[in-house]
């Protein structure tokens, strides 16, 4: 083999490798955009409240089987992410828990989606006010009115008396109608009740299937809590309550 031929081969190989690395460094990026729901809360929040933002992605052009990794940062708050890796049709939950030090301030949440070299970012913010969770007990009592009925009448939901729930305050400064959120491993239940005398003391719940639904798919109402009315199905709301 002549030196010329060897040099040609080596130069050719180096050129190919440089081209390959260049292709990898600037790949046709699988573009996508992330969507954060809601863009703003209904009212303010209090320290320790779990402000749950739902994150989905929209693939641009075509569907990719590779997931987008969701991350988030919120100075002045703790961040917990459920279902970090999502593809189109799946829902990640970014839970932002404001610290005591954030009372009187605005918490800014930066949610970032990353897939390979492509990324997208959305920023949402909310205010933190003084307050405490004084609704948990009553909200729990109301939930207990719905759960046995759901277990009997809607066994397909998989909700039973043994289902474990974690609750959080929502819309702390909201008058006339109070709101509360409960989460099981599978479901999010938004419960709201009308602070009124019978027969106007209604209570409603709507249920969202976590990680694949962006809005509630079921809703039920007790027309009068004190009159011990049975729950009846109603039209689910179009958006989640936050």
């Amino acid at each position: 083999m002549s030196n010329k031929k060897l040099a040609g081969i080596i130069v050719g190989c180096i050129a190919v490798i440089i081209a390959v690395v260049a292709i990898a460094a600037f790949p046709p990026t699988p573009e996508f955009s992330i969507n954060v729901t809601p863009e703003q809360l209904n009212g303010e929040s209090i320290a320790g409240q779990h402000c749950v933002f739902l994150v989905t992605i929209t693939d641009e052009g075509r569907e990719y089987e590779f997931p987008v990794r969701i991350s988030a940062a919120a100075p002045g708050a703790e961040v917990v992410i459920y279902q970090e890796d999502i593809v189109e049709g799946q829902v990640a939950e970014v839970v932002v828990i404001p610290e005591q030090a954030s009372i009187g301030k605005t918490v800014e949440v930066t949610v970032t989606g990353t897939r390979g070299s492509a990324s997208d970012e959305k920023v949402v913010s909310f205010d933190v006010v003084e307050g405490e969770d004084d609704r948990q007990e009553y909200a729990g009592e109301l939930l207990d009115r719905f759960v046995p009925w759901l277990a009997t009448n809607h066994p397909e939901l998989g909700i039973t008396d043994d289902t474990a729930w974690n609750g959080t305050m929502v819309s702390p400064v909201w008058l006339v109608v109070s709101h509360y959120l409960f989460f099981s491993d599978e479901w999010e239940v938004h419960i709201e009740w009308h602070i009124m005398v019978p027969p106007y003391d209604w209570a409603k719940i709507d249920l969202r299937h976590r990680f694949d639904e962006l809005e509630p798919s079921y809703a039920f109402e007790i027309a009068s809590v004190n009159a011990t009315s049975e729950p009846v199905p109603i039209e689910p709301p179009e958006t989640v309550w936050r």
Partner: protein
Amino acid sequence: MGLTRSRIGLLAGISLLAVIFTGALTFATLQLPVILGNWLSNYLPDIHPMIEPERVAEFMVVARPIGYACLGVVAILIVAGFVTGKRKLSIFGSFAFFLPTFGYFFASMFFLAGLGILRVPFIPFWDPSVNLMNFGDISYLPYVALVYPFWLGGVDIKEALAWIAIGVGLFIFVLGTITWFYGRVQRKKTVDFWIYRYSRHPQYLGFIIWSYGVMLFAAQQPVPMGGSNPGASLPWLLTSLVIICIALAEENKMRREDSERYLQYIASAPFMFPIPKFVSTVITFPIRLLLKKNRPETGKELVATFAVYATLLVLLSLPFVLLDFPAGIGWSGWPGYMPAIL
């Protein structure tokens, strides 16, 4: 060589010796890095990159030029070995190139803490915007082919496979070494018996399989939150290619020294391990295309062979890089959680 009673006894004794050495070396492969890592962590403690980014930056100012220099020295050793015909230099260089893989065995937030300091020569691969380390990911193809069907069936053999590769590699290496020494004692110019009947280079084959297991273990190591494991496929791939070129160079030398006998031996034993003829034809196709013959015979032809095969394997690894496969934390998270078996 007919199998007399004493020869059977000798073979059994040697096999037993090989098994004992294999066990000891497998244990050493996995335990020495842990012991060394714990000791080194006294001098190179972990640094949290998010909490103390300045300390990391300070450390990198010193480590980066050392990393480039180390990689340069390793490359020079390998090339010098081929150019001067002193193959031990190339062997030493290729082992030194693979050695940093052990740095993955030490879990830390900062990648150069503790035993991670071994990875200094890999810094040049991580510096560019694209991680060059993944350009050897075609090496994982046999791993994927073996692990995935079991994983679908609910059985995780990832770690077991790495163990087996390490053990089998060392066993072949030890058996090859013992056989070679026995051949030397017998004053044989060409060792062509026992394991040498099934591989012309059992020690190199053993090293390649052992290092594959080590590479798999490195790729399986967990990563700190938010990080990813880049693996060490490219160093393994290049090291293995260098080793194969060294084996080819040794064969050229043997052909010159013991031509007739060695040619007979080549005709009866496979190069590394027995493979079907059509696979061998496919693998050697680029050489035949390039050199118009079946094997490189001169130093220049060896260099050209190395360059072409390295380029081809990098090209074959490109889909892994472009598809960012496996996504997320890399091979340590692949193929994911075990699917539920109904």
